[in-house]
Structure formats: structure tokens, C-alpha cells
């Protein structure tokens, strides 16, 4: 395989980049289970920091999971019919709408959060409720859901399939339920996993919208990085990795699967 100097150089760059990305992850995992990181791993391995994290931050972990689930439900309710509508009604208006709802991908989360705070920050009941953070998460994840489903729907001859169902007597709603949704499943699955993964990891919007009583996992992470000892911060990061890495892998698997269908 290593026939030429060029290949060796390429391999070197690849491995260096891998090390740059991977070594800090390992450091963080190690630090999370080391008794005293300053003294090194020789001080012994322990799970006490992980338990400590559970004690301190279990709320934030549950809040994040609950938010991700709520976010999934809302993006499904809004995104699934919307993707169908965009697929059945292509044209400049649909493209404009798709472009518009994708703005939160392009504009920094900070700006989105500021905009929400400017308009709704004075509605006290809403401002301090968890639904305020949910709105931010939905804004950020909705385009992924819509695009993921839209890609699958656009790849099949949806119009003719629906005409087939209509000729058999199916109403608009029956066609949506029996034909559109089952055939969009790969896109829905990929979209759902993306939404959950991104919602659990979302920080930029959430940091601006959160209240002292509503801390999500990443907000808790930032909090622990600033105020806790390194071992606890690391153990918390370890918990986050355990949650996010399987989700990310499932998401990549589902997206690749949905993409194969769209080709």
C-alpha cells in the first residue's frame, strides 16, 4: 500500500489529524475516571467523579433528554407535513420557504437567541418556561427534519403514486397516511436521529435562553468547565459522550441509508 513517498506523507497527515481529534477525547475519558488527574493515572481509577456528576447534574441530563424528545415530536408534527407540502408543491415559493426556515443553520445561534429574547423576553411566563428553550431547539433542528424527509420524497414519483391511490378511492388524508408516510420512513428516521442528536448537543442558542433553574446538559457542561475541578468536568463530558456518540453513529447510519434510497 505504501508505494510512494506521497502515500506515506498522506498517511502521516491523516494520522496526525486523527490524533489531534482523538487524543483530547481519550484525555477527557481518562480524566473522568482518574482519582487525581494532577497526579496522573497512577493515582488510581475510580467512578466516584461520575457518581458526583450524577448527583450534581442528573437534572440537566433528564432535561436535555426531555427537551430532545419534545423537540422530536414538534419537528415531526411541523416538519413531516411541511416536507410533503414542499415536495408536492415545488416552485419558487417553496424554495423560498425552505431557504427561509434554513436560516437558523446559517445565522449563528447567538443571533437567533438574541432575536427571540428581544421579542419574547418580556413575556415572563414564557421566558422562564422550558418551552422557550424548546422553541430555540425546534428552530435549529427543524430544517434538518424537513430536508431529510424532502430528499427521500423528491427521489420517488410521489405524484404518480398518489394518483394511483386516488384512483383506488383514497382521500388526501388516506394518501398521506398510507402512501406518503410509510415511503418517507427512511427520511423520517434519519431526520429524527439528527434532531435528537443536535438537540442534546445544542449550546449556542440554549446558553442565551436558559434560566438558573433550567440547565440543559451542554449548559451544565459549560458550568462545570468554569467552576468544577477538572475530574468532574471530565466525568461529565464522559457522560455526554456516552449519550451522544451512539446517537451520532445511528444518525450517520440512517442518513447513509436514506441517501442510498435517494440515489
Amino acid at each position, binding site marked *: 500500500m505504501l508505494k510512494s513517498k*506521497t502515500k506515506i506523507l498522506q498517511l502521516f497527515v491523516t494520522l496526525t489529524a486523527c490524533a489531534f481529534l482523538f487524543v483530547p477525547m481519550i484525555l477527557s475519558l481518562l480524566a473522568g475516571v482518574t482519582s487525581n488527574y494532577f497526579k496522573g493515572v497512577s493515582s488510581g481509577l475510580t467512578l466516584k467523579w461520575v457518581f458526583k456528576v450524577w448527583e450534581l447534574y442528573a437534572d440537566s441530563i433528564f432535561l436535555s433528554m426531555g427537551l430532545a424528545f419534545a423537540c422530536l415530536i414538534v419537528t415531526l408534527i411541523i416538519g413531516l407535513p*411541511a416536507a410533503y407540502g414542499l415536495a408536492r408543491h415545488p416552485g419558487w415559493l417553496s424554495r423560498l420557504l425552505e431557504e*427561509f426556515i434554513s436560516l437558523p443553520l446559517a445565522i449563528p445561534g447567538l443571533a437567533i437567541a438574541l432575536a427571540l429574547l*428581544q421579542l419574547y423576553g418580556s413575556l415572563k411566563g414564557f421566558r422562564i418556561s422550558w418551552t422557550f428553550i424548546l422553541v430555540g431547539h425546534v428552530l435549529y433542528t427543524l430544517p434538518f427534519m424537513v430536508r431529510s424527509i424532502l430528499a427521500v420524497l423528491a427521489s420517488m414519483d410521489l405524484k404518480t403514486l398518489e394518483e394511483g391511490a386516488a384512483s383506488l378511492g383514497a382521500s388526501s388524508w388516506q394518501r398521506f397516511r398510507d402512501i406518503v408516510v410509510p415511503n418517507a420512513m427512511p427520511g423520517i428516521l434519519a431526520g429524527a436521529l439528527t434532531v435528537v442528536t443536535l438537540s442534546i448537543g*445544542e449550546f449556542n442558542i440554549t446558553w442565551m435562553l436558559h434560566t438558573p433553574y433550567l440547565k440543559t446538559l451542554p449548559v451544565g457542561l459549560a458550568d462545570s468547565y468554569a467552576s468544577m475541578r477538572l475530574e468532574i*468536568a471530565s466525568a461529565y463530558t464522559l457522560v455526554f459522550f456516552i449519550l451522544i456518540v451512539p446517537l451520532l453513529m445511528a444518525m450517520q447510519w440512517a442518513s447513509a441509508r436514506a441517501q442510498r434510497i435517494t440515489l
Partner: protein
Amino acid sequence: MTNRSFVLLCLTPLLIFSIVFLALPLMRLFLASGESEIGWSIYLEILRKPRYLNTLVLTVLVSLATTFAALAVSTIAGMFLSRNQFKGRGILLSIMTLPLAFPGVVIGFLIILLGGRQGLINQITPGHVVFAYSVIGLFLGYLYFSIPRVLLTVMAAAEKLDTSLEEAARTMGASPFRVVVDVILPGLMPSLIAAGAIAFATAMGAFGTAFTLATNIDVIPMVIYTEFTLSANIAMAAALSIVLGIVTWALLLIARSLSGTTVAVGGG
């Protein structure tokens, strides 16, 4: 109900949500930027006051450095991974795409573990090397989340490259180096520009990473944050947000028109 009205009904929830929670807030943000005593000239103020101008210049410079470094590393690694089949390739690929879902704060923390006071580099080197909280640390943090994004774009483009073009060049006697310069790079160019635009835009707007690392460095997202929370200078925070938003949005629009896709997962 006709099919047309059913389709329109399907779009209604999206329309309502995006008007109420996106269009109106953004409009409010824009109006808020003109509500200070200097009015709309606040946008000129950004260019006039050294504090904002220096911030702007520094942010652009760090982002540019990140973009070119990520392009160089990811293009080499991407071409290598897509053109060679070997044991462990899948693992390397997984490692290099894992950071896609990491929030910026976590990436900042990982850089601290690398270059902070208790960091790896500080422990294994004799001289006390702490770079996590400097511009270098920020650059490495941005590089950390840029590499996976650029890598995925490059690999997607490399798979679409027509290998018969390379073979044709070889039959005409081109050296491997000439093939890269004359065939592969021109073929990848639209995707490289797109990936570069994505990396640049994400770095410009990265808040989480800056939040953990840039306690003493003024980059735009940090200045927006401090103007809003500490100085309560809401108009300036809004104006900077608008400028930053327009710049990143325009860049991603260019990226999309060039490559057709944007791998913009995670916020940096």
C-alpha cells in the same frame, strides 16, 4: 377537500411557526439595532470604533487561518481515505467525523485538556507551555470542528470524481503530481470552495468554543455576548448579530450554490 388545499394545509404549521418564531424575532432584532441614541449609524460605528474594528479583523484572520488549515489537512486526508482501502480505514473515518455533533463548549474543553495548565502538552514538555487560552488555542478549537465538516465534503466530491480523467492524464504521460494539479484539484475545486465557505462561516459565528477559550480574546460572538449581558448595549449586540448573520448566511449561500449540499451539523 381538494388535494391543493390539503397540500396548503400541510404547509400551514411550518408557515405559522416560522413567522412567529423566526421572521418576527429577526425583524425585531433588526429594529432593535437602530434603537440606540445614534440610530442607524450604529453600523458605521462598528467600522469606526477600534474596539469593534479590531475584533472584526481578528475574527476574520482566525477564521481565515482555520479555513486554510482545515482545507489543507482535510483534502489530503480525505483523498487518502477515499482512494485507499485498508484495515482500520473505517475507524479512522469514524474518529474524524465524531466531532460533528460535539457542542463548541466541549471542543473548548478538549483544547484545555490539550493545552491548558493541567493539559497534556504542559505535562510532557519541560518548559511550561500553556496555549489553550491564546489565539492559538482558539485556532486549534476552530480547526477541531472544521476538519470533520471539510473532510465529509471533500470525500463526497472525491467519490464523484471521474477516475477515467485521471487515467486519461496518465496515459498521456502525466506524473502523479501533475495529475493532482491538473485533474484532481480542478475537479474538487467547487467542493473545496464550498467547504472553505462553510468552515469560514462556522468559525466566524462559533460561540461555544470561544466561550470556553476566549475569555481574554475579543472575537465577534464574544463581543456580542458581553455587549448584551455585561454592558446591556442591546443595540450594538443586535447590530453585530445582524452583520455577522448576513456574512455567514451569504457565505453558506455561495457554498450551497457551488456544491449543492452543506454539512452544517453542530454550531461550533
